[in-house]
């Protein structure tokens, strides 16, 4: 199906004056939304703006409190529990919904397995899975187990699954949040292929440049209200950002204050070899923000985990304030004033079923003991301080952390990390999947910490963030240091050259 440019085709899926409340709390107010075949329609807004609720309604997972859904020009009630997939509306979740132990082919046909006389047609399913992969131009073995795949490949499997179900509307919740630049490009190619075939794609993203590149139209939500739906050509990243937050975002990144040239080295790493790390050396100076850029899987997280003792170190030397250290447990590195903040806030950072207070103090529970017993009053005081310092917003302190928005979870995790009063903080993807407003807050917090004399490593896959925030940038590639950039060298093109292996800073051990 080819959609002629300029003549708007009738909408395939539309929301008409949709409102939604959870109990007494309204989250969406009379939203209008529609998507046409072959179109990419982006939904953007800060965390808590109602984006996720809207797509849940559009895919039938939630029912609207009022308003109606139109599908193919008719008013319909979408069946719940993902049954709307049979109508061709497929939602790809933010947290990927694949059974880790199944094979790729099993996953693609999950729930509608091909059967003959009640027995599975394993060969046929494998063949078709391979065929779908081929139409996507990806090379994933249909027999591979899901848990052996990279995040990007898992996403491709989800897309393959959607395609094999003849999806007419594909809804993606932040598909690029966990992808590297290269993987994002591949994903976008897939999306363009799908739209060329007439599939409608709705996607949520926080990355404005991606939206500019991919989307035909953009709908902006703020605080559950519809703000605007505009053609992308009429937009600039600045104007989108402004609509999202309702205020000027002139200074997303705080001004850089370079550390003193003779600032002492607080963390030294020499020839570190560990799982996923082949050989890396670098120095972190007092008051410095050192960026770690590179593709996903290039070993940045592995370096951090080897330093703080989360994973085994094969060889190499680590010094803290010039003294050699060897952390085998996280407790030791925390004790020494070196804290690591994970990128996986839901899987490794926070206890989602618990309240704010136990989460905040989990790392530093020892400080809240009085004669061997927990002093909950002291914990509450700590929470009060953290809420004020990091602007954490929650309905009440007992609400399960899993119900907070991503931005507030991130700020809580930052608060938890800072509770240990570290001098060196390694932040892994500190702004993954959070809105621009919260990002800005976190950037300013990071800059303020550095100005206080704390030293910070920021591992990030968002190039703009590394460029806007860091004094120096280590680019990693395949477990090694590919390049070290300073000052004016820190540009997107230069980082990419090192990350992709086009440029390399000599094989001689260049210590940083």
């Amino acid at each position: 199906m080819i959609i002629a440019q300029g003549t708007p085709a009738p909408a395939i899926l539309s929301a008409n004056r949709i409102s939604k409340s959870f109990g007494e709390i309204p989250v969406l107010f009379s939203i209008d939304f529609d998507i046409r075949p072959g179109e990419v329609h982006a939904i953007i807004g800060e965390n808590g703006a109602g984006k996720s609720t809207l797509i849940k309604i559009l895919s039938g997972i939630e029912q609207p409190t009022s308003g109606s859904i139109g599908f193919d020009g008719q008013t319909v009630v979408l069946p719940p529990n993902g049954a709307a997939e049979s109508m061709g509306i497929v939602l790809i979740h933010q947290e990927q919904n694949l059974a880790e132990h199944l094979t790729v082919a099993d996953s693609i046909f999950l729930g509608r397995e091909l059967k003959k006389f009640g027995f599975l047609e394993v060969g046929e399913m494998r063949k078709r899975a391979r065929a779908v992969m081929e139409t996507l131009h990806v090379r994933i073995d249909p027999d591979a187990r899901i848990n052996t795949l990279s995040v990007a490949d898992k996403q491709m499997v989800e897309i393959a699954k959607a395609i094999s179900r003849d999806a007419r509307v594909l809804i993606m919740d932040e598909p690029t949040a966990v992808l590297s630049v290269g993987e994002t490009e591949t994903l976008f190619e897939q999306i363009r292929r799908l739209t060329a075939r007439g599939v409608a794609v709705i996607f949520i993203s926080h990355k404005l440049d991606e939206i500019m590149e991919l989307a035909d139209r953009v709908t902006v939500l703020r605080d559950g209200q519809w703000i605007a739906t505009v053609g992308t050509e009429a937009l600039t990243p600045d104007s989108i950002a402004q609509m999202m937050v309702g205020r000027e975002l002139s200074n997303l990144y705080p001004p850089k204050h370079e550390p003193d040239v003779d600032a002492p080295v607080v963390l030294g790493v020499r020839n570190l070899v560990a799982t996923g790390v082949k050989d890396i050396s670098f120095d972190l100076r007092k008051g410095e923000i050192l960026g770690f850029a590179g593709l996903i899987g290039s070993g940045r997280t592995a370096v951090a985990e080897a330093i703080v003792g989360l994973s085994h170190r094969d060889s190499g030397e680590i010094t803290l304030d010039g003294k050699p250290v060897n952390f085998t447990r996280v407790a030791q590195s925390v004790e020494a004033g070196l804290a690591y903040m994970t990128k996986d806030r839901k899987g490794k950072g926070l206890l989602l079923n618990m309240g704010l207070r136990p989460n905040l103090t989990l790392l530093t529970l020892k400080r809240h003991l009085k004669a061997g017993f927990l002093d909950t009053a002291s914990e509450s005081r700590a929470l009060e301080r953290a809420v004020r310092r990091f602007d954490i917003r929650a309905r009440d302190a007992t609400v399960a952390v899993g119900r907070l928005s991503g931005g507030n979870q991130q700020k809580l995790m930052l608060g938890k990390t800072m509770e240990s009063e570290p001098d060196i903080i390694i932040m892994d993807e500190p702004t993954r999947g959070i809105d621009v407003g919260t990002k800005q807050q976190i950037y300013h917090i990071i800059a303020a910490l550095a100005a206080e004399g704390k030293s910070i490593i920021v591992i990030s896959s968002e190039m703009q963030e590394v460029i806007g925030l860091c004094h120096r940038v280590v680019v990693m590639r395949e477990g090694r240091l590919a390049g070290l950039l300073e000052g004016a060298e820190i540009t997107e093109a230069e980082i990419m050259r090192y990350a992709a292996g086009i440029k390399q800073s000599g094989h001689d051990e260049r210590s940083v």
Partner: protein
Amino acid sequence: MSAASDISEKPKRGFRLELKTVGPLLALLLLVLLGISLNENFLSYSNLTNVLARSSFIGIIAIGATFVITAGGIDLSVGSMAAVIAGLMIMVMNWLIPTMGIGWGVVLAGMLAGILLGGVAGTFNGLMITRGRIEAFIVTLGTMGIFRSLVTFLANGGTLSLNFDVADVYRPVYYDGLLGVPYPIIVFALVAIGGEILMRRTAFGRHCAAIGSNEQVARYSSINVDNVRLLTYILQGLLVGVAVLLYVPRLGSASSTTGVLWELEAIAGVIIGGTTLKGGYGRIWGTVVGVVILGLIGNILNLQSLISPYLNGAFQGVIIILAVLLQRGKRT
């Protein structure tokens, strides 16, 4: 909860949370009312102390199980462990009689042996799980068989009996009490209070919940996951030892049928009390209520004549399923 000032204090789902908290208590109240209406002897002092004293073995074990389960583990071996500890305790006491003579010395030595054996058995389970990296279910299924078989072997397929004179000295530990309250109930209460404090007010309790909730988060939060896990199994073993030293004076013997299905009763008590089977949340007082509920069901069935007491297990089963069903309904 006195938390941050700019965070509203009013829980929005207050009613549901309330229901979840008081659910087991409500069930207990209903059972008591049912008991009163069926038989006037139900509320008598002797009946109630009898029920509680019988429940205290399972109760003490179940308190240990609450920690194990909260930390995301399971211990299926406690019933067999109780049997083998009872058997070994009796053998130790009988063996000591020639050197120590009949008296409290032998009994105290036996008690000490019981607690130590429990600690050793728990340590074995815990080490296999944490250092051996074997699933708790598998390890304790294995030790369940090992312990059960050991006691059968030690008793030569029959019964191990405590020397009659020593049993006489020991008997008051089960049958006597302080101010009319039998000792098993007193010990049960003390263990429950200690357990509640340990769970609620110490880093150990918080760490158990954290590990059960998400082991990775616990590891990244510098908690020594293996050690905390190991400690829960050691604690479980020690508490099995405590339960056994109260149990032995009741009959003065141990056989291959001692403690059969105790593990299931203990786990059932824990679950009825509101602790989540997959870990992450546990409450000791709930376990106490759960165990008492199970005890009362049997007692009420014995006190009436309409329904056969042989259906005891069926009623307990229904209660367990209902409890989990209600828990799930409240977690949306």
